[in-house]
């Protein structure tokens, strides 16, 4: 099992009132196993489309997506998603939400219980097992959503601006926590954000997309900046941001994104 994803000549066209809109055009990209890829780009550049295609929630107009050399044909528990609006089931408690995927995939009750208990511990929600999502804060809800996705031990984790709805403080906490949780199994991650800092802090590689129709503008290896031995995401975010290299990279990526926004 290699957990690699390859995009082969992906195009996606939507039919809108104004005519055919091309969201992605001839998109080619390879993601290595266990890689943390963060995608930034102007609004409407096809970031979310790319994620939905990878999830199998929509199909490409042209081209193929291969996961471990197998074409993606529909949604499945080997690729779980964390959505921006959490999308927890309001009628299920914290533990029911987290164990839902395990249960419907036939994981035995005892193993389910173990995995769930551990997940709840990892996200720091011990004591909140019987709470409904509406009784939790936004940050806690997003932790549950992350646990629900991680507990499946997916090959690929897809995250669509998962922290955009959180306040700045929770956002920082969740970024650091995500690194910690991710480091355990290291699934391949495709993460979308509008925050350049978030991208640089989390990613192995940052992918800057062009404006619509979306294609790859720039691919930045963060390890070239944070040093080959240890990625700065393993320390706190403010320590990372204090580094000269972090700021240089931030400036470089921000300029790159700005060019795309400016041209519109």
């Amino acid at each position, binding site marked *: 099992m290699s957990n690699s994803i390859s995009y082969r000549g992906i195009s996606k066209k939507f039919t809108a009132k104004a005519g055919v809109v091309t969201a992605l055009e001839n998109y080619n990209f390879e993601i290595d196993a266990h890689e943390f890829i963060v995608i930034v780009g102007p609004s409407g550049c096809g970031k979310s489309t790319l994620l939905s295609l990878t999830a199998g929630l929509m199909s490409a107009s042209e081209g193929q997506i291969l996961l471990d050399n197998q074409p993606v044909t529909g*949604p499945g528990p080997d690729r779980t998603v964390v959505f921006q609006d959490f*999308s927890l*089931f309001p009628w299920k408690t914290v533990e029911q939400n987290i164990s839902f995927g395990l249960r419907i995939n036939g994981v035995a009750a005892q193993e389910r219980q173990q995995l769930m208990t551990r997940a709840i511990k990892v996200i720091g929600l011990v004591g909140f097992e019987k709470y409904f999502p509406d009784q939790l804060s936004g940050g806690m809800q997003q932790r549950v959503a992350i646990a629900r996705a991680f507990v*499946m031990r997916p090959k690929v984790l897809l995250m669509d601006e998962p922290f955009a709805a959180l306040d700045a403080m929770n956002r920082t906490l969740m970024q650091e926590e995500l690194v910690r949780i991710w480091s355990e199994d290291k699934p391949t991650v495709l993460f979308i954000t509008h925050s350049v800092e978030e991208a640089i802090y989390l990613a192995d590689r940052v992918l800057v997309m062009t404006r619509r129709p979306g294609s790859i503008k720039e691919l930045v290896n963060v390890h070239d900046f944070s040093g080959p031995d240890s990625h700065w995401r393993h320390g706190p975010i403010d320590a990372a941001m204090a580094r000269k290299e972090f700021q240089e990279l931030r400036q470089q990526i921000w300029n790159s994104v700005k060019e795309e926004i400016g041209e519109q």
Partner: protein
Amino acid sequence: MNMIFSRKALEGSAYAVVSIGGLIVFWWLAVHHNWVSSFVLPPPTDVVKAILRIVNGYMGTGLWVHFSASMSVVLMGYIIAIFLGVPLGMSMAYLPIVDRIFAPMIMTLRPIPPPAWIPLAILWFGIDHSSKVFVVFVAAIVPCLLNAYEGVRQTSPKLINAAEMLGANRWVVFSEVVLPSALPVVLTGIRISLGNAWATLVAAELVVATAGFGFLIINGYRNFEISIMAAAMFPIALIGAAMNIGFILLEKRLVPWRTEQKN
């Protein structure tokens, strides 16, 4: 949270006493000062006496006979309406072909007020229970069906996606996402149906019945016993209100994620 009589609840009951008490006082004053003739509107005391007469057996039959006559018709028509209306509404929302077949029919029949069916129902089913059950059914099925349809339609596509991403098949999506998501709306429809059923039952009993609260009213009218007419309206109001409250409590039990508050 353990306090049964919160300040808010006490305030509410105080207003209720003023509201209902005021109405009774005004009613008493109106009759007492002959603003309206006591022949048209009997004083509250006469109505209380009439209520006691009904309870103790007006015209040879006790309150229980009228209660069970009304309730058996209402429940039968109502339950048939739920068991046909909810599944039909849900399948219309889920399967376009069912929607296309039934929607025009329902949209055509729906504007007809249920009591308009009474004469036809008598012609078809005779003057016994079944004609009233039919009319109650017609009145009750509409909110059941429409809310079941709406409830299923309102299911968030994002939650369906979230379930599919975790490996849910069509059946799991239906039973664990669509059904619980629709449940509050469906329950509201079922509760509105109960009110409709009750109102239509009384209308039907005014036309054709030998027992029941509607029968008591029309019998009081025929015998010029105005206080009986008024008295029979009280159990109708009480039972209607009790059923509504009971239903709201049931909704809270069945939909705990909606009513639980943040600590």
